């Protein structure tokens, strides 16, 4: 029972991204910061245990969980049936829209327009799976190891289109206005869930409880305001 | 009583039959010279006696105890059998003194001081008392070989095996080494030597063993055997060497 373990060792280990602004990125001290990090802190507080932050990439976050290196993954994790077979999810804690973004010179407005184009994406992410499922076969998907690499590939012009979250795109625009990606179309409304190992019912309900409290007492909204500069969408978590 | 005894020893390298039933008996204090053509199995014979090589049939006894090549046996053997090689095999990273002292200290557990006394004595015996602190590579071949002898003697062996120990030496250095052997023989050391020095075999050796094709082809009193060989093969061999 992981919940019991957490309480026994008075420490919770939570995987967070460090390459995925605004969910998790590094400051000049190379320490992670962002929505996911705040969320992790909040949960640790509520459980009244110490927090051990484990930075992960999108490629290795699931193995981390499966191999019990971490208790929770708070890493802008989207839910899909295949993943649900491997791990369990809590209720959502943050909004997220996946889309295809890119240079203004590329003329794409819908999935079908992607035929023959090249899109950069982070391997194993929800957007990767979405593209694989729905994009035209002639789309050339270029999969990178982690978000860092995907973003770098876009910023250096190695790819002209990327599939990622709307928030990531916004972040790029802030940092590199001259390479600001424009939204081509949205792939999926894919709110973020906290992942945990299968069969940990006690932990799951405990965390779900913490999330719904946070939703009610406005903590989630505060976090959203802080990092996204916008309130939670209407009906979020309903 | 016999110190070293070989009884019908057979040895194979894979399919190759090297020793084809060797019988040999060496008494304490004897000096036996083994001669024979290259490839006749002389080195192999010596190496079987001190356990460096296994043999497949027959038996070897040393002072009544059987010899095999199992490691532990070799170690016990090493306490009674000394061996000196054609290529000296001194330890290049140790001084002459350290070369000689090493085995007495770590194998016989002698104290440093005791080992040093022995080493000095042995070096004196081979006429190199002043070379204690030199490194081997600073010595001539003849000097190196004499250090090797001193090193073997420091273990107080009952018998000393010498495998063509002068063949790698410049002619002018051979004499010094032979002189040391002569002196050892005079002191009563048992010596089994593979050698091409016929004069030495005749003058110092008690007995000569002529090996041919893995067999002891002829053996007997040194002077007699070398002057009146019985077999055609030995006659040819002597003709070729002298």
């Amino acid at each position, binding site marked *: 029972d992981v919940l019991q373990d957490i309480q026994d060792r008075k420490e919770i280990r939570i995987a967070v991204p460090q*390459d995925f602004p605004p969910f998790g990125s590094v400051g*000049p001290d*190379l320490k992670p910061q962002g929505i996911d990090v705040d969320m992790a802190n909040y949960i640790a507080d509520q459980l009244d245990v110490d927090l051990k932050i484990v930075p992960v990439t999108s490629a290795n976050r699931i193995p981390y969980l499966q*191999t019990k290196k971490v208790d929770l993954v708070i890493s802008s994790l989207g839910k899909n049936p295949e993943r649900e077979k491997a791990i369990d999810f809590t209720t959502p804690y943050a909004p997220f829209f996946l889309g295809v973004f890119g240079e203004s010179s590329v003329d794409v407005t819908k999935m079908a327009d992607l035929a023959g184009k090249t899109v950069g994406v982070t391997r194993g992410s929800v957007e990767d799976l979405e593209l694989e499922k729905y994009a035209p076969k002639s789309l050339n998907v270029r999969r990178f190891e982690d978000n860092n690499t995907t973003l770098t590939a876009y910023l250096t012009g190695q790819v002209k289109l990327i599939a990622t979250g709307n928030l990531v795109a916004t972040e790029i625009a802030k940092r590199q206005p001259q390479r600001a990606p424009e939204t081509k179309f949205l792939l999926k409304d894919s709110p973020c869930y906290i992942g945990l190992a299968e069969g940990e019912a006690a932990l799951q309900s405990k965390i779900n409880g913490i999330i719904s409290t946070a939703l009610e007492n406005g903590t989630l909204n505060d976090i959203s305001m802080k990092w996204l500069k916008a309130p939670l969408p209407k009906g979020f978590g309903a | 009583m016999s110190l070293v005894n070989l009884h019908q020893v057979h040895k194979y390298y894979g399919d190759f039959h090297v020793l084809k039933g060797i019988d040999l008996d060496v008494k304490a204090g004897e000096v036996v010279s083994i001669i024979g053509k290259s490839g006749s199995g002389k080195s192999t014979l010596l190496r079987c006696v001190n356990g460096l090589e296994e043999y497949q049939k027959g038996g070897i006894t040393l002072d009544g105890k059987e010899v095999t090549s199992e*490691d532990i046996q070799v170690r016990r053997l090493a306490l009674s059998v000394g061996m000196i090689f054609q290529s000296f095999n001194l330890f290049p990273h140790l001084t002459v003194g350290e070369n000689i002292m*090493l*085995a007495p200290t770590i194998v016989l557990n002698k104290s440093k001081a005791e080992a040093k006394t022995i080493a000095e004595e042995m070096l004196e015996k081979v006429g190199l008392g002043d070379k204690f602190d030199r490194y081997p590579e600073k010595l001539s071949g003849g000097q190196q070989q004499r250090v090797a002898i001193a090193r*073997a003697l420091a273990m107080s062996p009952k018998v000393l095996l010498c495998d063509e120990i002068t063949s790698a030496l410049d002619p002018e250095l051979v004499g010094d080494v032979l002189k040391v052997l002569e002196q050892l023989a005079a002191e009563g050391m048992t010596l089994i030597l593979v050698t091409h020095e016929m004069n030495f075999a005749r003058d110092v050796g008690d007995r000569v063993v002529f090996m041919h094709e893995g067999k002891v082809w002829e053996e007997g009193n040194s002077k007699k055997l070398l002057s009146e060989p019985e077999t055609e093969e030995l006659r040819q061999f002597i003709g070729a060497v002298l």
Partner: protein
Amino acid sequence: MIEFSNYDIIRNLIFAAQWTVLLSLVAFIGGTLVALVLTALRLTRNSILQKLVAVYIELFQGTPLLMQMFLCFFGVSLLGYEISAWSAAILALTLFTSAFLVEIWRGCIDTLPKGQWEASRCLGMSFLQILRYIILPQALRVAIAPTVGFSVQVVKGTALASVIGFVELTKAGTMLNNATFEPFKVFAMVAVIYFLLCYPLSLSSKILEKKFNVSR
């Protein structure tokens, strides 16, 4: 938006480089110890042990270090043991290092004449005594230059720990690149730091080689 000055980048890279150094040191020491044992095993005249060592070498020289990292990281925990990125990296680098060092050292030991072994055995020394007093001191002289030379490969190998999430120099580089979007500058700096770490090792290996060759 957080601004990174050049100073921030360098400071962070140098901080991360400490991990690279530490990782290299631990891996090198670990690799040396394992390689010592393996070298001793292969010198015994036990053919089964020799074969096992040969398989070990084939295995770790015949697969990419990257794979070894992944397998150590995910595989060991699958076996039910906790393993951090740090330990996994150490483990993988130790396996990798030892496999190569055994080969290098074998070459060195083979250059010693067989007569050294035989003379020692004839003096009654045990296997371990021969190793300790005769073979090791001589092989060490020959082995030191190629071993130092190989340490460069270990330092460079630590770069692959980045792919299992361990924040050393290369990982810090990709993170900083992501934060600053100045790949040319960041990766050039990373390369320079590696060069500064490795070049002295390469150079001393060459000098040692000359020195020991001359005195031979």
